[in-house]
């Protein structure tokens, strides 16, 4: 029995239920929601401390022994991801109190937000492939409702595209899980790790490919990303921040987990090469798509795709260094990307639009806000000493060591284009004078400013802190990579899970 591995699920669940009971009072719901987010962050820190101190943590749900029951496992990768979810939850809850329309917020916004966080944490923690599917569905359903809240026409249009394409991915995922179970007879990931190597290579490769498609849609990898820019720009900024920061990363996490533990990437035929090519195409199409956009949130949405490419390239290189760099990149990107969406929401509250042609002059009006944008934007482009610089440097280094020169060249070129497109936002939103036809900006009341700008500022500060403390933090992601790909392979994970039964 291991409390820290279940608390990140129990706390959001309890929060969601309690705030459902407080149905009539939005005030009470907000406080419960805030307390729940703080609790989640606290439990994430506790989980990380436990993993740092005692190695991989596992608990058998319902006391059913390992290959038969569902195991919850937390290694360094899981603990890092849960911590990111906790940080984003903590930032988004106060932010949404000020920014989400009251009507939307009253329609079960807070319970749904916590169910979404529970789904995300569950997906990170579970050690069972079918259970992973269940958590994906929890996330999908709650995110679908969050997207549709308010029921405006563009919102529903975006939400429908989102849910239709993600349902197809879920279907492929479920079919792959079924086929895998038919082939191997187990779905516990640790048990799979011991049995899949004996599987026929052809079957293993085709199963790996179908998982690649399923997770590829979730992670928005080329050519499966079309749902993302079609839906992310229709939501309130708070929801977009949590989606941008966390949801695609769950797909990336699933790839990291499945392709290191279940199907070891270098063993399953052409999957590694395919993944490498796809990741490069993802980087390039994402950033080119972004250059063509003229709406702030759409532009940022295309950048999500481009950045996913970096994470997948790190996985595809498949060396301990590249995996460590990939985990670092996921952490950096989650923080930076959410911050950018939070800033876009603050800008929108002032000027009432996301359209680049109608924005301008924000720098003169609020240099502070410009700084909050500049930090994550430069981090995204990879300017030292911010977090993105270290992340990209390590990926490039791993690429050079693996002789993947084309991938390295692509990553560097895409970085330049990212910088270009960030400077485009900078010019349009902050630097150039606003068009004369626009009404003067709204001055938000002090309470709203505190609620929206403080979480944004803390998140922006993270990009600096992660960049400056890169040494120790990189050591920690290297520990994650060692557990996934270290000298002994995933044997530590397997032993911890299957050993629990005795």
């Amino acid at each position: 029995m291991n409390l820290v591995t279940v608390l990140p699920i129990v706390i959001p669940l309890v929060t969601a239920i309690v705030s459902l009971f407080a149905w009539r009072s939005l005030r009470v719901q907000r406080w419960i929601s805030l307390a729940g987010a703080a609790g989640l962050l606290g439990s994430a820190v506790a989980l990380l401390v436990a993993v740092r101190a005692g190695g991989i943590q596992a608990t058998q749900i319902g006391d059913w022994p390992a290959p038969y029951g569902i195991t919850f496992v937390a290694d360094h990768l899981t603990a890092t991801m849960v911590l990111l979810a906790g940080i984003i939850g903590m930032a988004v809850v106060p932010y949404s109190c000020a920014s989400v329309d009251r009507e939307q917020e009253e329609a079960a916004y807070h319970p749904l937000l916590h169910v979404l966080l529970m789904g995300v944490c569950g997906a990170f923690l579970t050690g069972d492939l079918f259970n992973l599917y269940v958590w994906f569905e929890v996330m999908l359903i709650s995110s679908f409702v969050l997207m549709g809240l308010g029921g405006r026409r563009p919102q529903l249009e975006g939400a429908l595209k989102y849910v239709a394409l993600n349902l197809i991915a879920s279907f492929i995922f479920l079919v792959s899980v079924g086929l895998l179970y038919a082939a191997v007879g187990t779905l516990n990931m640790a048990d799979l790790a011991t049995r899949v190597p004996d599987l026929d290579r052809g079957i293993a490769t085709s199963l790996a490919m179908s998982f690649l498609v399923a997770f590829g849609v979730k992670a928005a990898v080329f050519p499966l990303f079309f749902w993302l820019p079609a839906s992310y720009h229709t939501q309130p900024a708070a929801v977009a921040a949590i989606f941008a920061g966390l949801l695609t990363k769950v797909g990336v996490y699933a790839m990291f987990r499945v392709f290191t533990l279940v199907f070891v990437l270098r063993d399953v035929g052409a999957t590694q090469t395919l993944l490498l090519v796809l990741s490069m195409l993802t980087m390039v199409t994402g950033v080119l798509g972004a250059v063509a956009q003229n709406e702030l949130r759409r532009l940022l949405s295309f950048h999500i795709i481009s950045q996913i490419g970096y994470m997948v390239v790190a996985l595809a290189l498949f060396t301990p260094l590249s995996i460590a760099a990939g985990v670092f990149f996921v952490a950096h990107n989650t923080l930076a990307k959410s911050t950018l969406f939070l800033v876009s929401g603050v800008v929108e509250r002032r000027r009432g639009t996301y359209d680049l042609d109608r924005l301008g002059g924000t720098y003169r009006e609020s240099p502070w806000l410009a700084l909050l944008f500049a930090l994550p934007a430069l981090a995204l482009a990879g300017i030292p000493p911010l977090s993105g610089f270290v992340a990209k440097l390590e990926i490039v280094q791993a690429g050079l060591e693996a002789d993947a020169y084309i991938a390295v060249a692509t990553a560097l070129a895409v970085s330049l284009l990212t910088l270009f497109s960030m400077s485009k936002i900078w010019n349009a939103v902050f630097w150039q004078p606003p068009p004369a036809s626009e009404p003067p900006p709204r001055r938000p009341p002090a309470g709203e400013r505190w609620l929206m700008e403080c979480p944004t500022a803390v998140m922006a500060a993270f990009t600096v802190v992660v960049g400056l403390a890169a040494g120790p933090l990189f050591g920690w992601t290297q520990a994650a990579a060692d557990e996934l790909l270290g000298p002994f392979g995933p044997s530590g994970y397997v032993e911890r899970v299957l050993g629990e039964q005795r």
Partner: protein
Amino acid sequence: MKSLILQTATRYLFPLLVLYSVFLLVRGHHEPGGGFIGGLMAAAPIALCALAYDVDVARNLLPLRPIRLLALGLATAAGVSIGALFMGRPLLTGSWVELPMPGGGVLDLGTPLLFDLGIYLVVLGVVTQIIFSLATKSPLHWERDES
């Protein structure tokens, strides 16, 4: 379109369907059945009333508003799961007691039944909420006004 045949049939079917839903719930303890299917079955008579009479009649049949049923059910199921943690066992671990029955048999009762009862309430709440929303065309306001 009020149909006398449907209304009369509903009067007879209603208790049968409710009873059958409880049977399915309890049967799920050891055999196929359980909270999910039982909850669906419990929503059927409510839906039948909404069709045969009208939505308000159906709404008054429920002891609580659907959203409350949902919250109560979730709280029951989650409470049972989390209760195991306080007993020093992993999440969702079941506890069982064996009750000797008059006549020599033994009835083993366990917390999974309570968990299933929670699921039953959740499903009943969700399905009736969906039915009422569709019937009254106000999906997003969740009858806040009428409370």
